[in-house]
C-alpha cells in the first residue's frame, strides 16, 4: 500500500555523523521536560504511575471486600461510594492501575522490539526479504488495531499473557513502518557502507551501526505506542475481554460503573478520570519529546502522520 510521493514528513533524522552523542536520548528527554507542556505532562504521568504503584499499599479497604451497599453514594465508610457489589470505589481505583500499566509497558516493549527488528531488517537486508516483511505488515495493518487484538483474544481467551502479546503484535507493523524508513536513511550513509564492505555480518551491522542511530525515533515511537497500549488494554477490558473479575482495573471498572451512573457516578467517573489523565499526561509528554527532538513544525507533522499510522514513507 504505497502512498506514492506523499511522505508528509520524514521520521526524525538520525543524528549526522558516525557516532551518536552518548545518552543523546536522555538529553532529549530532559529538554522536553523543561518545556511547559513537557513538564505538565511528565508530572501528571508520574503522578498516575505513583498512584498505580503505591496505591495498592495505601488503600483503606481490601478492594474485593464488601463494605457498603451497591452503588452507594460517598459515605463514611467509602469515600467515593460503592461499586456494583458494594466494594469501595476508592480502594479499587488505587488498586486498579498497576496491572494495566505493567501490561501496557510489556506490550509496548514487545511491539517496539518486534517492530524495530522487522523495520531494520526490512531496510537493510536485500530485496525479497524487505517485500515479505512489509507484506506481512500490510496484512496486519488491514485491521483496525482493536479488532485485531479482539480477534486474537477471542481465539484463545482473555489470558493476561495473551493480551500482552496480542496488543504487542498489533503495534509491531506500525513501528516497523516508521523504523524502516528511518533505517533506510541510515543504511545509505557512508559509514554503514564502509563497515559492511569489511565483511561484518548483516546482523552485526544492524545492531552496532544502524540501531544506535535510531534512538530518537525509537524513543518517540515507544512513547506513542505506550499511549495506545494503555488505550487498547482499557478498551478490551471495557468490552469484557481484558483483565478478568474480580481483579480491579480501570477499564472494567468503567464498564461496571456504567450501570450505576444515576446512583453513584463515582463508580464510573473515578477510574475514567484516572485513565484520562494518564493518557493525556503521557501523550503531552511524548509530544514534548517529539518537539524537542525535531523542532515544533516537523514534530507536528510527524505526530500527525505517525498517529494516522497508515501512511508509508517511501516503500514499494
Amino acid at each position, binding site marked *: 500500500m*504505497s502512498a506514492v*510521493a506523499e511522505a*508528509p*514528513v520524514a521520521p526524525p533524522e538520525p543524528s549526522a555523523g558516525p557516532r551518536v552523542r552518548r545518552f543523546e536520548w536522555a538529553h532529549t528527554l530532559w529538554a522536553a521536560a523543561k518545556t511547559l507542556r513537557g513538564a505538565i505532562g511528565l508530572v501528571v504521568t508520574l503522578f498516575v504511575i505513583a498512584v498505580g504503584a503505591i496505591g495498592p499499599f495505601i488503600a483503606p479497604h481490601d478492594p474485593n471486600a464488601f463494605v457498603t451497599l451497591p452503588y452507594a453514594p460517598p459515605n463514611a465508610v467509602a469515600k467515593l461510594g460503592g461499586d456494583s457489589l458494594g466494594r469501595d470505589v476508592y480502594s479499587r481505583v488505587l488498586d486498579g492501575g498497576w496491572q494495566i500499566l505493567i501490561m501496557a509497558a510489556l506490550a509496548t516493549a514487545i511491539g517496539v522490539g518486534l517492530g524495530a527488528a522487522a523495520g531494520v531488517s526490512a531496510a537493510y537486508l536485500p530485496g525479497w526479504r524487505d517485500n515479505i516483511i512489509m507484506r506481512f505488515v500490510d496484512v496486519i495493518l488491514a485491521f483496525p488495531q482493536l479488532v485485531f487484538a479482539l*480477534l486474537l483474544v477471542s481465539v484463545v481467551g482473555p489470558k493476561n499473557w495473551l493480551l500482552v502479546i496480542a496488543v504487542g503484535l498489533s503495534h509491531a507493523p506500525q513501528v516497523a513502518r516508521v523504523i524502516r524508513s528511518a533505517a533506510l536513511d541510515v543504511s*545509505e550513509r557512508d559509514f554503514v557502507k564502509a563497515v559492511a564492505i569489511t565483511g561484518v555480518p548483516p546482523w552485526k551491522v544492524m545492531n552496532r551501526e544502524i540501531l544506535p542511530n535510531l534512538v530518537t525515533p525509537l524513543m518517540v515511537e515507544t512513547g506513542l505506542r505506550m499511549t495506545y497500549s494503555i488505550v487498547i488494554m482499557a478498551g478490551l477490558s471495557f468490552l469484557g475481554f481484558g483483565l478478568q473479575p474480580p481483579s480491579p482495573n480501570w477499564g472494567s471498572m468503567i464498564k461496571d460503573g456504567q450501570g450505576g451512573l444515576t446512583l453513584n457516578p463515582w463508580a464510573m467517573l473515578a477510574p475514567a478520570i484516572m485513565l484520562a489523565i494518564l493518557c*493525556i499526561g503521557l501523550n503531552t509528554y511524548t509530544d514534548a519529546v517529539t518537539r524537542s527532538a525535531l523542532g515544533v513544525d516537523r514534530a507536528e507533522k510527524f505526530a500527525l502522520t505517525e498517529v*494516522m499510522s497508515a501512511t508509508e514513507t517511501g516503500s514499494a
Partner: protein
Amino acid sequence: MTTVEQPAAAAPVLVAVPHPIRRLLIERTLYGILTLFIVSILVFAATELLPGDAARAVLGHNATPIQLHNLQVQLGLDRPAVVQYWSWLSGLLHGDLGKSLANGESVSTLLAGRILNSAVLVVLAGFFGTVIGVALGLFTAIRRDKFIDHTLSVISLGVTALPEFVIALGFLFVFSTNVFHAFPAVSLIPPGSPPWQSPSLLVLPVAALVVVIVPYIYRMMRAATIEALESEYVEMARLKGLPRTGVLLRHALPNAIAPTIQAIGLSFLYLAGGIVLIEVVFAYPGIGFTLDQAVQNRDIPIIQFIVLLLATFYIFMNIVTDVIALIATPRRRVPR
C-alpha cells in the same frame, strides 16, 4: 508547494512514468486483492480456532449429543478446514455470505440494516468532522500562535490522548444521564427502520466520533496551511497586493488540500475502528456492536464477514485516499 520532504538521499532518480494515476490504481488494486486474500485466510484460520462450539450456541444447553452432531453436520462444521474455507470463499465471491450459525438466516439479510446504520454514523461523522476540522485548521493557521491557537492545540492534544470509549461515556454522562438529560442514553432505533428517522439517537454517537477525528484533520489542515502560506508562491501573490482572503482561498488553500485529504481519508479508517467501542457504549445497532456480540456468541460467519468487511474498507480507503492525493497535487505525479 507541497509538504513533501523526501528522506535525504534515499529516493533514486526515476524517469517520468506515463499514466501514473491509472498505473497506481491498477497496482494498488491488485495488491489490495492479494492482501485481502491473505487476510481472509487469516480470519478464517483464527475463527476456526475459536474454542467453544457454535452448534451449542444455537441449540442451547438443553441440547443432547445427538442433536449437536446433527446440527454440526447440517452446518458443515464437520468437514475439513480447507474444504470449509474454500466453500466459504467461493460463496463470498458469488455474493453468498453464508448463513448465520445462530439461526440459519443469511448473513447478508441480517447485516444489511446494521451495515447501513454504521455507514450512516461514519458518513455523518466524517462530514461534520471534516467541515469542523478544516474550518478550525484554517482559522488557527491565520491566528497562529495567538491565544486561541494555543488553547485549541492543547485541547486537541488532550482529546487525542483519550480512549474513545471514555469520550463516548463523557458525552453520555454530560448530555444524557447525569448533567443534562437532552438525549437518550441508548440508541433505540426501532427494528427495521432506517437510522435517519430517529435523528436524536444519532447525535451523541456522531458527536463522539466527530470529537475523535477533528483533532487530526484540524492539525493537519493547520500545518499544511501554514506551510502553504509561507511558500514563495503565496509571498509573490501578497507582494502583488492581492487581498488577504483571496490569497488564502485561491493560492494557499489548494496546496494545503492534498495532505488534508489524506488526513480525512485516514480519519475514515480511524472511524471504522472506533465504531466498535462507541456503538457498544450507546448500544447502537451497527456492525461494531454486532461484532462484539458475535464474538461473545461465537457466531463465526458473522465474525468472519464483519472483519473481512472492515479490512476491505480499510484497503479501499487507502487506495482512494492515495489516488485523490495524487490527483490533487499535479506536480507530484512524477516521482522525483
